[in-house]
C-alpha cells in the first residue's frame, strides 16, 4: 500500500521568528523543521504500510528556499521519498493556492491508496487545506481521524467528535486528516538518520507541475492581509475589598450584565 503524507516545514516554535511588516506574513527564511502535527500523520502512514506488509510512504511538501530540514526528519523516521515544491512564485500563497500545488504534487508522487494530512498546520491554522486537496483531486475527504484501517478498497476511520467518535468509511484513494496525539511518533534511529541523506527528494517548480504561476502566490491569492497588530494585553480585573458587603457588589455586577 502506498501512502502520501503532506508535511509542512515550519519555523521552530521554540524560536518562532517574526512577522514581516512588508508582506505581513511570517518570516520563513530561518531553518525550518517538521511541523509536529505532521509527525502523527507520518507515523500513522508508516504503521499502515507496515500492517499492509508492503508499499511505501511518500512525503509531499511546499517550502521556500529548497528547504529539506523537516523532510529529512520524516525520511529518517522511515518515509521512502519526497516531492518538494519550492518556487519564489509561491510566496504569499493562500490556503487554496497551497492546495492546488499540493494536489498536483501528490499526483506527481505516484499512485497512492491514501493521502494523509494533519488537521491543520501549527503556524498557519487555516485548517482548510485537506478538504480543498480532496475537492481538487475529486477524492473523498475524511477529517479528524483518530484511527485508520484500510481493508480492500475501503478506508475505515474513527472520526473524532466532541462526544466520542463516528465510524466513517470511504473508497480509496481518499484524503484523511489525522488529529494530533493519536499515535506516538517514533524517534528517528541513527540508521534512519544516515539513510535519510540518500533518499530521493524530487524538487520541482510550479512550472514543472503544469500550474500557471498567476494562480498561486500573491498573484493568485483570494485573500489580502490588510493589517497585522500585536494582540491586546489582557486588562487587569477590578479588585473589590470585602468589607462584609462584597457579595452585594457581585450581585450588582451580575445584574448589570443581565445574568441575574
Amino acid at each position, binding site marked *: 500500500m502506498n501512502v502520501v503524507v503532506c508535511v509542512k516545514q515550519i519555523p521552530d516554535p521554540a524560536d518562532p521568528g517574526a512577522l514581516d511588516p512588508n508582506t505581513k506574513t511570517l518570516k520563513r527564511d530561518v531553518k525550518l523543521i517538521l511541523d509536529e502535527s505532521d509527525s502523527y500523520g507520518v507515523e500513522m502512514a508508516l504503521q499502515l504500510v507496515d500492517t499492509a506488509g508492503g508499499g511505501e510512504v511518500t512525503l509531499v511538501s511546499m517550502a521556500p528556499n529548497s528547504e529539506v530540514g523537516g523532510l529529512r526528519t520524516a525520511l529518517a523516521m522511515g518515509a521512502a521519498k519526497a516531492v518538494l515544491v519550492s518556487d519564489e512564485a509561491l510566496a504569499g500563497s493562500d490556503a487554496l493556492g497551497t492546495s492546488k500545488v499540493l494536489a498536483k504534487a501528490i499526483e506527481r508522487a505516484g499512485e497512492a491508496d491514501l493521502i494523509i494530512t494533519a488537521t491543520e498546520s501549527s503556524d498557519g491554522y487555516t485548517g482548510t487545506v485537506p478538504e480543498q486537496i480532496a475537492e481538487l483531486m475529486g477524492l473523498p475527504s475524511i477529517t479528524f481521524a483518530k484511527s485508520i484501517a484500510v481493508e480492500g478498497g475501503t478506508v475505515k476511520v474513527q472520526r473524532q467528535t466532541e462526544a466520542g467518535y463516528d465510524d466513517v468509511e470511504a473508497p480509496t484513494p481518499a484524503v484523511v486528516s489525522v488529529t494530533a496525539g493519536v499515535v506516538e511518533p517514533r524517534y528517528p*534511529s*541513527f540508521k534512519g538518520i544516515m539513510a535519510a541523506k540518500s533518499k530521493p527528494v524530487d524538487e520541482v517548480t510550479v512550472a514543472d507541475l503544469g500550474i500557471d504561476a498567476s494562480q498561486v502566490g500573491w498573484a493568485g491569492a483570494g485573500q489580502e492581509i490588510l493589517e497585522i497588530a500585536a494582540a491586546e494585553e489582557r486588562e487587569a480585573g477590578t479588585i473589590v475589598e470585602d468589607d462584609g458587603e462584597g457579595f452585594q457588589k457581585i450581585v450588582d455586577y451580575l445584574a448589570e450584565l443581565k445574568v441575574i
Partner: protein
Amino acid sequence: MRFAPTEEQTEFAAATGALLADTCPPSAVAAAWGGEVGRHTGLGDGDGRIRAAWDALVEMGVNGILVPEQQGGLAMSLDHLVGVLEECGYSALPDPVADSAGVVAHSLGQCSDTAPDVGAVNDTLAAVAAGSTVVSGFGSSPLVASATTADTLLMFTRDPTRVDPDAPADPAADRVVLLDRSEVDLEPVESVDGSRALARVRWDAASGACVAQGSAASALTDEAFLVAALADSALLVGLGRAMIDLTVSYVGERKQFGVPVGSFQAVKHHLADAALAVQFAEPLVRNAAHLMSGGVAVEAPGSIPTDSRSVAVSAAKARSSDAAKKVTETALQCHGAIGYTVEADLHLFMKRAWALARSHGDSAFHLKRVRRQLLAG
C-alpha cells in the same frame, strides 16, 4: 584540523536530546534515586535506572555507536559518541550509557580479533548493541556505578589513578576480564548522587572470560581509562549546560525588589562566568574525542611534542571537572535557599556533577598528568 561536529554528529546528538527530553525528565531522575539516600530524601527506592529511556536509546542505536558492524553496531567513532553523551549529561540520565556504549564498546572493539577469549568478547559486543548493560571497573575492589543492575562487568586489574607514575607496576601482571554479575561480590555503597547505584565490586582476576593479559592488557587498560575520563568529561559538559539553563530560567522567574533577580548585574556576571567555563571545556572534550578517534593533532608552533591523546583527555577531564564545580557553586548561589532542597531539580544535576568530577581522576590528578607528560616531552 576540524573538530567541530559534522552535520551527522549534530543530528545524532539532537535526536538523543529530543528522546531524553521526553523519557528522562527530572521527575524520572528523582524516581531513580534509591538506597539510604533515596529513602532519606523521600525521593524513592529506584535502582538508578530509567528503563523507558534506556530501551528507547537502544532502539535508536545509541548503544551500538562504537560496536563493529559484524556485531550489529554502527562502527562509528568517539566523535559521534561525545555529543550523545553531552545530551545524556544534560538530562542527568542515570543509566550507564557512557560505560556500556563508551568504555566497554570501545575496549572490546579494540580486541575483537586478538582477545584470548574472542567468543566472549564478540558475544558481549553484540549484547551491548542489543541493549545489555555492561559496566567497567578499574582495580581489585573498585566502586562501580550501576553495578547492581549490570548484566556483565568488564574488569581491569590496574587502577590508573592509584599507580605511582615513578614506580609503575609490572605491565605483565595486568589482566582484563569479562565477568557475569553472578561471578562478582557486590556491596552497595552510598553515593552523594542517589541515582548512581554505586557498589564496591570484589572480584577474582583468575575467573571470568579473559579479554587481554600482559602487555596487551596494560595497553587496553590505559586506553579504556582515557575513554572513561573522556566520557565523564562529556557528561560533565552536558550537566554544566543543564545547570546554567535551569538557573537562567530560575533567576528570570524569581523576583526581588519588584524585578527578576536575573536582571541584577551580580547575578548576570556570575552566570556569565559559569557559562564561559563550560564553553571553554567543551572544545577540549571535542578535541580529545577527535584525537581518540584517530584524528591528527596540530601542534602549535614551538609546542612540545607529547602523547597528544593522553594529554588531550586529561586536559578535557581537568577543565570539565573544574567547570562543573564552578557551575554547581554558581547555580546553588543563584538559586538561593531553594537550591539546597531536594524538591528543587537542581540537586539532581549538582550531585551527579560532584560524583563525576571525582570519577576516573579528579582535576588535580589530570592536571598532574598533563604536567608530567609535557615535562617528560
